[in-house]
């Protein structure tokens, strides 16, 4: 999968100051977000890494992990890519085991999955909402410029985190899992169904 990085055309010092401001706003509420299962694992300009878990389910698991990139911010909005939380490699859509549900205003009975991508790995999965770089760079949204949203709330770090959370693990109520255990060549399949 190929990920196209943006070229830094804004003054790098401005982007650095704005990045630091976004990180500092997150740090002020980091504990509250941690209790919701949103944990910052690394800050390395221009990137900030998060894992999203579901603390209300036991056992908790990491549902997905993202890298939010602030290159060229805020001439461009941040980029959101989904990564393996352990290796930081990009993942395919089918490796993110959750849907990001949004009610479709045109057809309320057919909700939209906001995480677009395919299982072949041809497309880097992208979070398709205004305020995310991949949305505004997509040819289908050429009429929906970032400059219509910039400074209105969309595109800041906590907006993106809230949107990722609210459309996925915020609405998760339970999950099914199968544990495959092996001991002395004996395969044991144990199904666990967990509800909060």
């Amino acid at each position, binding site marked *: 999968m190929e990920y196209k990085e943006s070229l830094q055309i804004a003054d790098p010092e401005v982007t650095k100051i704005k990045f630091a401001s976004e990180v500092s706003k997150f740090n002020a*509420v980091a504990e509250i977000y941690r209790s919701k299962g949103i944990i910052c694992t690394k800050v390395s300009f221009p990137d900030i890494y998060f894992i999203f878990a579901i603390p209300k389910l036991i056992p908790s698991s990491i549902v997905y992990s993202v890298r939010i990139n602030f290159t060229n911010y805020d001439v461009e909005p941040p980029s959101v890519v989904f990564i393996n939380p352990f290796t930081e490699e990009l993942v395919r859509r089918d490796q993110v085991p959750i849907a990001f549900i949004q009610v479709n205003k045109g057809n309320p009975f057919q909700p939209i999955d906001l995480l677009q991508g395919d299982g072949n790995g041809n497309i880097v999965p992208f979070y398709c909402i*205004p*305020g995310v770089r991949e949305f505004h760079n997509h040819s289908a949204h050429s009429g929906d410029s970032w400059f219509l949203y910039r400074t209105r*709330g969309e595109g800041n770090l906590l*907006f993106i985190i*809230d949107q990722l959370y*609210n459309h996925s693990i*915020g609405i998760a109520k339970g999950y099914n899992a199968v544990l495959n255990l092996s001991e002395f060549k004996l395969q044991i399949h144990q199904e666990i169904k967990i509800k909060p």
Partner: protein
Amino acid sequence: MKEKEEKEKQPNLISLTFIVNGTETIVEKVNLNQPLHVSVQKALEQTGNTGRPISEWQVLFNDQNLDSNKKVEEFKFPENAVIFLSLKAGQGGI
């Protein structure tokens, strides 16, 4: 001690903690009998988020969407309740 005395004097008034697009703010002296949207509006003002109508904000407590037209007392918020205000995402998908 003073806080306790004030509570006894004004049992209908509480404080509510909001996180507005990631910024924490406390709205003081919230009357339990007033609709929640009054406090939501104050929280938006206190955090400088006045450019968008209240209808464009999602009001969430414990991951549940709240109807801000209901009275505050109907929600029975615990003492350390944190209410999240998040902008509703624009229509996504392609």
